[in-house]
């Protein structure tokens, strides 16, 4: 049953050291505010799951919070590499990070299987690719009807998933619109689901019947955090801050500069600051 609470409490009650945690968002609706709150609370030894770890995971890895990454594309989308992730993987700074790497197709299927309560997902994938040689969690199953051999990956079942969404209604139902990505599956696959939203509305009575809605009884906690996806975007609310993604490439290039930036923009900041950051990016309703 969804409970409304401040983000600080939602993170504190639902994340703990050593957890397997997904902060999901496929370019759109990345739960930046929740990730920054987790950074402020200083968790350790997390296994961080995400199809597309971008600058949010670069920040968490750079702060030494992760012992393992499970992912399928670790880049700053459209800009380049993740320099803090590179530093951890290549040089063990500030700590070494174990890597479990999949393809997008495999991870999407693994989340889907997690949401569906299955222990594994089968896909026609990885044929000829190098990952099965370096990732022992890529196995195979044989179709009992045709004999075709398919790739198999374990389902993803995070301890906790954090997502950002457009709206909650007063009962705690959550509406996700636009590029919906993998968030529904990530939330349903997790033991606990924490959602930040742009706003809370009365109800979804006027919404089209086939939209992507998570019922309140699938969600653990909801925090209202306007702008909470910045520098990612929220369809219908504000645009992607592409300049910030470009800027990150510089900030993250140097360990000291990274630390200073984190101090100023994350450690000393709070959830309410996100509303200000998106002010100039807001779209006409």
């Amino acid at each position: 049953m969804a409970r409304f609470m401040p983000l600080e409490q939602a993170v504190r009650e639902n994340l703990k050291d050593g957890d397997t945690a997904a902060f999901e968002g496929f370019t759109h609706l990345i739960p930046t505010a929740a990730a920054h709150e987790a950074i402020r609370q200083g968790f350790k030894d997390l296994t961080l799951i995400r199809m597309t770890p971008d600058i949010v995971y670069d920040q968490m890895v750079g702060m030494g919070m992760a012992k393992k990454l499970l992912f399928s594309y670790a880049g700053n989308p459209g800009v380049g590499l993740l320099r803090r992730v590179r530093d951890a993987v290549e040089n063990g700074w500030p700590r070494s990070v174990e890597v479990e790497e999949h393809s997008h197709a495999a991870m999407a299927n693994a989340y889907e299987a997690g949401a569906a309560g299955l222990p594994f997902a089968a896909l026609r994938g990885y044929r000829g690719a190098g990952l099965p040689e370096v990732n022992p969690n890529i196995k195979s199953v044989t179709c009992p009807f045709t004999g075709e051999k398919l790739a198999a990956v374990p389902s993803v079942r995070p301890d906790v998933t954090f997502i950002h969404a457009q709206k909650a209604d007063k009962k705690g139902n959550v509406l996700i619109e636009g590029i919906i990505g993998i968030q529904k599956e990530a939330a349903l696959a997790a033991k606990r689901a924490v959602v930040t939203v742009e706003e809370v509305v009365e109800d979804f009575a006027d919404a089209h019947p086939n939209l992507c809605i998570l019922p309140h009884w699938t969600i653990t906690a909801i925090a209202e955090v306007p702008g909470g996806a910045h520098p990612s975007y929220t369809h219908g609310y504000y645009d992607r801050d592409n300049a910030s993604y470009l800027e990150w490439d510089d900030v993250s290039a140097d360990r000291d500069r990274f630390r200073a930036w984190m101090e100023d923009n994350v450690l000393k900041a709070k959830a309410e600051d996100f509303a200000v950051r998106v002010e100039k990016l807001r779209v006409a309703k």
Partner: protein
Amino acid sequence: MNDFTPNEMMTIAASRALTSQDVCFVGIGAPSAACNVARLTHAPDITLIYESGTIGTAPDVLPLSIGDGELCDTALTTVSVPEMFRYWLQGGRITIGFLGAAQIDRFGNINTTVIGDYHTPKVRLPGGGGAPEIASSSQEVYITMAQSKRGMVEKIDFFTSFGHGDGGDQRKKLGIETKGPTLLITDLAIWKPDPETKEFTVVSMHPGVTREMVQETCGWKVKFADTLEETPAPSELELKTLRDLKARTEAAHKGQAG
């Protein structure tokens, strides 16, 4: 107007390979530009699909990521990521998977994962994303990249996505029924796989390009087709379309401040 950069020639040559009948799974970067130039010129009915779930999208500016809002705003429909990879890619509905590459070999195998050893990499690259299955499930694969000895190598460090392996019928032997890479468009030339060996062979050089230029920027001994064509220079319309698109894109991405 007859001045154009090798990169512009590359994008425009790539765009010409696409038709209005294609359903194209678009990688970011050069493929995205080529696909949208095709859509804005000779292939208005092409279906562009980005792995974020946007189907039939028609962006006015090029997306910085595969999930920019513009892609959703202009799409016919936007589906979830698992649906994208299950029903649309694995379902066999993509005619052309369009990929870029950090490293490629002569058989169209691609590496975007690591430079050096996988477990102790010299450079940790972003990884495959959708590429492993785009390469195996799309009916054909087109690749576009600028030539360099660092990028076009004798032996790639990691098989992020499978092209023709060691050549010949190795795809089939691995149970991959699709055609694989059938076209490579660089800033200097157009390459197609040899029908037998599947080694990429230069079939057309862009205006002003010499065999030496192609060889100097390629890490393997280049094969040239017996009859070598010259890629037609960009038309005025093509060049204007591409430059307008780039200008709109730059304005849009710079116009935002955190």
